[in-house]
């Protein structure tokens, strides 16, 4: 694939927190650094504040306190240079544009160019061969999500934010995607932040897993995934992977238990 237009940035969250206008506290003050070129997975129970955290990193949600720095600059600067792409939890495809049309729009917004053949390659990579000129209404939920992933990759972002990108995709396609897609962002050296509900996916895809507590989100555990790449499905059965997976599960349940105790104490 083509040149990467922006080098992968380091993302720094300092003392970052969010309380919504209604008083809902979604994110506790968090200090977190996402290393340049690494893939970091965020896992945590539903409604804990993962999407909020991701949106604050992109600068789409303003933090109640604290700062986000992408390569030392505020998120807006990165967005202006089209240095980041986000795949939203809801695919956010424009209904009046085909899959290709949606990808082209992203390129236009990002002021980037891409060869049609490269777009075809991307569409085929996410398994949408033959659907390039189909409108979203005629795609299934999972197909729409895959189109949104292709769109996010098309602009060669230095920072890739994926909010449950495989949420509505079947297990087999999911495995396929989680083998194919990391190749792209590894080859490009993209800094990737991945929100997922699947613990095994988090372990297999990332260099580091951050486990969040129930709302308001706090870091319960920060686990380095020191597995060699490329990761195959066979590797997933190794004892080391199982041990890592167990650790993530343990952290999740600990977070839940603490949360319950916290609520009971209130």
């Amino acid at each position, binding site marked *: 694939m083509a040149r990467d237009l922006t080098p992968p940035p380091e993302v720094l969250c300092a003392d970052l927190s969010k309380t919504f206008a209604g008083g809902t506290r979604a994110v506790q003050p968090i200090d977190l650094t996402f290393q340049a070129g690494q893939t970091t997975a965020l896992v945590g129970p539903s409604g804990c504040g993962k999407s909020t955290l991701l*949106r604050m990193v*992109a600068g*789409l949600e303003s933090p109640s306190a604290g700062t986000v720095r992408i390569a030392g600059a505020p998120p*807006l600067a*990165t*967005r*202006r*240079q*089209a240095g*980041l*792409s*986000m795949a*939203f939890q*809801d695919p*956010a495809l*424009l*209904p*009046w544009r085909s899959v290709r049309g949606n990808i082209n*729009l*992203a390129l236009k*917004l*990002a002021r980037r160019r891409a060869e049609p053949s490269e777009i075809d390659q991307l569409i085929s990579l996410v398994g949408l061969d033959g659907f390039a000129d189909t*409108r979203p*209404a005629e795609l299934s939920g999972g197909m729409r999500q895959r189109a949104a992933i292709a769109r996010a990759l098309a*602009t060669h972002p230095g920072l890739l934010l994926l909010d449950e990108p495989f949420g509505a995709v079947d297990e087999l396609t999911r495995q396929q995607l989680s083998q194919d897609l990391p190749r792209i962002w590894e080859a490009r050296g993209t800094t990737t932040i991945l929100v997922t509900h699947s613990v095994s996916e988090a372990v297999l895809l990332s260099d580091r897993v951050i486990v969040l507590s129930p709302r308001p989100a706090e870091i319960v555990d920060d686990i380095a995934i020191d597995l060699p790449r490329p990761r195959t499905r066979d590797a997933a059965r190794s004892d080391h992977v199982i041990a890592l997976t167990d650790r993530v599960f343990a952290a999740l349940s600990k977070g839940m238990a603490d949360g319950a105790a916290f609520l009971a104490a209130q």
Partner: protein
Amino acid sequence: MTQTALDTAMAPTINRRGRAAVGPVLGLLAVLAGWEIAARVLTDAFVLAAPSEVLHYLVANWQLMTRALGVTLGNAAAGFVIGNLAAIWLAGIALVWPRSEGVITGLALLVFCLPLVATGPILRVLFGPGPGPQITLAAFAVYYTTLIPLLIGLRAAPESWFDLVRSYGRGRISTLVHVRSMAALPYLFAGLQIAAPAAFLGAMVGEFTGAERGMGVLTIRAIRALDVEMTWGLATVATAVSVLVYLAIGTLARRVLLDDPPVILATPAPTGRRYQDGWIDICLVLFLALGSWAGSIWLFDLNPFFAKGPQDVFDALFLATDAAATRGTIGMALMESAIFLIPGYFAGLVTGALLAMLLTLVPAIVGTAMPLAIALRSVPIVTTAPLVVLLIGRGALGTIVLVAIMVFFPTFVACLQGLRQAPAQVMSVFDSYAAGPLTCLLRVRIPAMLPAFFAAARMAVPASVLAVTVVEWLATGSGIGSLMALSASLSDYDVLWASVVLVAALSAFGYGLVGAVERRVLAIYAPEQLA
């Protein structure tokens, strides 16, 4: 009328054009047959011309008719373009400067509530001879019905689409070009479709006020001469033209748009408003309305004998020696009109809603009734006012029936569409418990219908005022419509201006009152509409 929709209900017509077209055609034939028979029965009463006679008249006078139609269509088209451009422009301002939206819609509503019966003669004096008043009234008749859908449409996109644009570092202009404009297109079409017949109606009412040529002029002449065939012929042409324009825009919309056009429901609620903003806006609207009224009289240096400012109207109503008499005359006329308007308004609302509900219990009929009702909704009811009066007489019943008809069609269509808006998933849940149609109607469909019903009820307020004033003016000779016409011809401009102000204020107040009830009810049944 806001809940326009180019019609989800027309969907069957799109899918199975051949078969579905049979229903409306049969319906039309039945109407024509009934009309012909009634006319033959009533032949001595000189009230009803049979379709055959109307056709004969139209063929015999086709040159006269086409010339008049050409003039009126030209005026209507000019007003249509001007009014819609104004609407787009106003929506643009509201978008760029969201805080102004409440004031813009408020002022727009006030102008929309001006009684055409009185603004017509006033515009006639201002413009002198020529097409000025016709075009202005046509523009007045359309801009509001376009503005409101457009305001909704420009915001009718999920938040994530805006986030997408922002995530590439782009701002409002990109949002407007790539998201808002496209998302608003169906709403714009929905507005334009309602606007087209409204423009025709506006132009005709403008011609009532002493134009030289056009359908409106002929209508006045036909009524004065008690020429039954001509009256029916003109109403038929006006109806046919309105239905055709309505259908033409609908067809165009279906070609341009992907999806079924939307059903437009609640009024747009600007985001981030506080409670007191509403009151501040109302005060601003009043201030700006009074200011521009006084300002334009001063700016154009209008003849004080004719052009009365806010101060003059206040004097006439409260300070002048005959103030009590003036108040009495106007109050009396308003009462007379209210006696017709209020029963007609509620009768139209209730029959519209009830019939729509009844029809959903017999879905087979909806396919036939729906296209017919949609077509009839575009009929310029007011131009048929002379007919109704001819048929039912100049008494109370005639006026009440006309108001009811004016309210009935938009309500009926809105409610049918609303009833179909019932969320499919919820209906599936009810189906899975084998709930009967009545249970579904009560528990799911009626709550789903409420927003559309209230939108129709709100828009029906100015519409029923228009109906009652036109009938009073053209036919019955009582009430505020007649008073305004009379004072215009007697050059009693104090009374004329005061009546205009009171009617507009009362219409806007009625609209607001329905809106308040609407918010109460929707807060319980459809809170998402208020978000």
